[in-house]
């Protein structure tokens, strides 16, 4: 709180001009730089995964509206993403509804489901709330698996006829074709990413978002100051679901269909891990978490030999294939360490603290 107000003072005297523009510029930078960085030879070396990075960033950022800003832990966030994915897939494959109509409807539907569930459970205690979201997520998974009326495709999911006509794929790349123009799918996702996360940022810094922080910090105090805590939690839950569904809708095109794993508890767990790993205290925390998680996953699974110090001068070769197949072990370790150091800071907080300490030392200030 005090840090925010000092920043506000500094802004007013014009000391930090970047202030308000920090987040929009940061989002633009992420969208523009992510693909070149990811596809660089020293990194992953192939650009196709970059769009998945952005989509998961939207989804995990939506989860952080709950965990980071409102202090609600949901074990079923993947459900709302999956509802978006499945809505579009069903609309395209069975109902012949165009994507541009199906996507907003899917998001609305997901938000509606979240609103109803939120009305029912948002006032429950932390653990009870988490367990109830888990139960509802399990139920959604069950329904999709049960395949009512042949709509959801059961265990195999939906793949046939789930891509709109204006999506073209060639050699692993996806393109959006609009009246003669051919835009790379990545840039379409990047546009949605920037607009979507800007909306989320506006939400977070609005009076609504500030009230959510108040609820997180001290629920009893917020209530005694006249905040209808339950209503704010319900709406936070609803908005988070809407943004998750936005990610889910994009994921449908990105993965060309809907699979049951998008509704699974494991996916919900991964979303939690990514948010915590990145740093739930920061708006950009989830983005960092997604980057670390997905990068590590992609990088380590086809990483075989560690050559030290350089490939050109091999002094030491370490065969790592056997060990790195179990990369989640090291991720778990990193996760435990991150929680022990500070549960809400994550890698982004760690990086920020390190940079601050280094710059203080360079400027010769004592710590």
């Amino acid at each position: 709180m005090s840090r925010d107000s000092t920043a506000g003072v500094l802004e007013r005297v014009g000391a930090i001009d970047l202030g308000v523009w920090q987040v929009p510029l940061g989002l633009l930078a992420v969208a523009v730089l992510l693909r070149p960085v990811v596809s660089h030879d020293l990194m992953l070396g192939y650009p196709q995964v970059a769009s998945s990075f952005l989509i998961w960033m939207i989804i995990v950022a939506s989860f952080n509206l709950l965990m980071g800003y409102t202090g609600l832990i949901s074990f079923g966030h993947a459900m709302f993403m999956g509802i978006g994915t499945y809505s579009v897939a069903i609309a395209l494959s069975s109902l012949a509804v165009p994507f541009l109509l199906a996507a907003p409807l899917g998001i609305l539907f997901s938000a509606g489901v979240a609103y109803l569930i939120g009305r029912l459970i948002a006032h429950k205690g932390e653990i009870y709330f988490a367990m109830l979201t888990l139960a509802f997520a399990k139920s959604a998974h069950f329904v999709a698996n049960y395949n009512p009326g042949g709509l959801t495709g059961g265990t195999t999911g939906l793949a046939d006829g789930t891509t709109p006509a204006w999506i073209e794929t060639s050699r692993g790349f996806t393109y959006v074709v609009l009246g003669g123009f051919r835009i790379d799918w990545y840039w379409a996702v990047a546009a949605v990413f920037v607009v979507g996360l800007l909306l989320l940022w506006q939400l977070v810094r609005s009076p609504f978002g500030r009230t959510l922080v108040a609820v997180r910090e001290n629920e009893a105090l917020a209530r005694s100051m006249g905040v209808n805590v339950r209503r704010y939690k319900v709406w936070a839950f609803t908005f988070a679901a809407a943004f998750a569904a936005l990610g889910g809708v994009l994921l449908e095109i990105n993965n060309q269909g809907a699979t049951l794993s998008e509704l699974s508890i494991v996916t919900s767990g991964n979303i939690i891990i990514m948010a915590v790993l990145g740093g739930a205290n920061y708006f950009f925390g989830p983005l960092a978490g997604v980057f670390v998680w997905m990068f590590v996953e992609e990088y380590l699974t086809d990483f075989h030999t560690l050559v030290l110090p350089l490939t050109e001068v091999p002094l030491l070769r370490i065969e790592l294939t056997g060990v790195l197949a179990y990369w989640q072990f090291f991720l778990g370790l990193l996760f435990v360490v991150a929680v022990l150091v500070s549960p809400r800071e994550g890698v982004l907080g760690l990086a920020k603290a390190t940079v601050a300490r280094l710059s203080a030392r360079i400027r010769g200030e004592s710590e």
Partner: protein
Amino acid sequence: MSTSSLRTLGLARLSAGGAAVWGAIALLLLVAFAVEPGLFVDQFVGGLVYGMTLVLIALGLSIILGLLGIVNFAHGALFMLGAYFTYQLMALWGLSFWIALVVAPLLVGLVGVAMERLVLQWLYDEPPLAGLLAAFGLALMIQEATRAIWGDTPLSVVTPAVLAQSADLAVTTVARVRLFSVVVAALVILAVYLLIERTDFGLSVRAGVQDREMAGFLGIDMPRRFVLMFFLGAVIAGIGGVLQGTAVGMNPTMGQQYIIITFVVVVVGGIGSLFGSVVAGLLIGEAVFLTPLVLRSLADVTGIGALAVPGIGGLVPYLVMILVLLVRPRGLYGQEGFME
């Protein structure tokens, strides 16, 4: 704790609505029994074994949650380790089942103590979220280590000769090893009950559950009790793992599968109530196995095929939980206001 819960179980408190619900359930079970008696007993025993396994995991989880306020997500991983240690001892080192039954849980207990000393003890004063997340990471680590050491494929051990035969129950036969599991689990539950309710040690632990700080002021060495109870909880989960591993087999995702259902059990039973965990575990175990059968026989009797929803058994615990928490937020036997 559980003496008062026993009192609430008394029939005097049963309302008219409650009586109607229980009567309807009894009627449905009778219909199912009349339609397929053999299958009914089969499923009943299956539900009992499953429920007992759930109770064994839930006891440790409930103790740790009540005493330390930590949602130990890694408890399912400890359960899984019990099964894999059995495999290591029996299949790889050639020891007998009876040695594994004693040694494997103790080893699991040591893993539990290591977990508590190295990680979780630093998080007692943090918000509950921190403990949950750290345990989440630990569960991930144990699961991956298990995959790395014992591989991805499901494993099983050879059941000892005494337990390999079947027992005759008139309408059906049941593998002895399953009945053995039920007996061992019942003994463990009884032992835990006696320890918690009838010994000075148990008394001091209960004092810690009520008010950790105050119990510390009164001269009770709480950190030592934390370690001991963590050890105990891990050992109980380990015993569950040994029994499950011997009767059914093991795979690296079993910890994850069981921990979620076990949370459901603890929440339905009421957080902090061991008696509630036992009741809820058996209730949910039976519900998972009997609901599909009841629905199927109901579909047979009424001729409405749509009633027999395939795979409904897996969903039942969650439906039970949603229902219980909406009607009675503290769970069946939980204290009012505890962690609500």
